[in-house]
């Protein structure tokens, strides 16, 4: 194989890994008045894209933090697998 063939394969592999769409659950916490939903997604980017079409949720995307399986995450490239739980956490005020 040539170097460029290797590179092409690597890209295909990567695309494939990120390309597996699985069913994940989206939970809306605190004041977001919405029952949880299920979506097909391979990464948080897919979740973001789909939630932008949801009028009720869109306004919260600016200020909500995101957790995957109860761990806060910082990258849209965070991969998702079947059964993962994605939580949206709006601004907090304990105490």
């Amino acid at each position, binding site marked *: 194989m040539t170097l460029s063939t290797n590179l092409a394969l690597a890209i295909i592999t990567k695309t494939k890994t990120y390309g597996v769409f699985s069913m994940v659950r989206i939970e809306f916490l605190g004041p977001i008045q919405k029952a949880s939903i299920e979506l097909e997604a391979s990464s948080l980017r897919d979740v973001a894209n789909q939630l932008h079409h949801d009028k009720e949720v869109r306004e919260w995307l600016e200020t*909500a933090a995101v957790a995957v399986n109860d761990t806060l995450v910082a990258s849209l490239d965070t991969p998702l697998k079947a059964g993962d739980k994605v939580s949206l956490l709006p*601004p*907090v*005020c304990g105490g």
Partner: protein
Amino acid sequence: MVELYDGALDVPTILQRWYEEEAMSNYGAYIPFIGTVRAEDEIDGLSFDIYEPILASWFDAWQQRAKEAGALVKMAHSRGDVPLHHSSYIAAVFSPKRRVALETIDLFVEDFKASAPIWKYDLKDGERIYAKDRSTPISGSGLLKG
């Protein structure tokens, strides 16, 4: 472990229990912070939602951080409705050292305000209104805004 209670906290009982729990631990300083619902903006009280799994991991991380500083943290919080002049929150630090205790209670309470997954609502004329203006976006928020 964070202690969660339905409704207002029994402050004297919790303060006493924590004091007695650590009576023989040889800490020299014990600093509780007690948060009480103030009468303002004509509210009848406050109400709280808590997302427990992330609160637990936030608190565990703090317990570790406190331990490395030579301190111990405890916390209690209300779920649901808390009337005026009742308390909804107690955070406490124990340490052998006064400076560590004073600095840790400050950092702990401020980080709690900024990060703990708890949502506050004003109770007003029978309604439960999200306290949006007093709330703080958690660090890293806006990830999904695209």
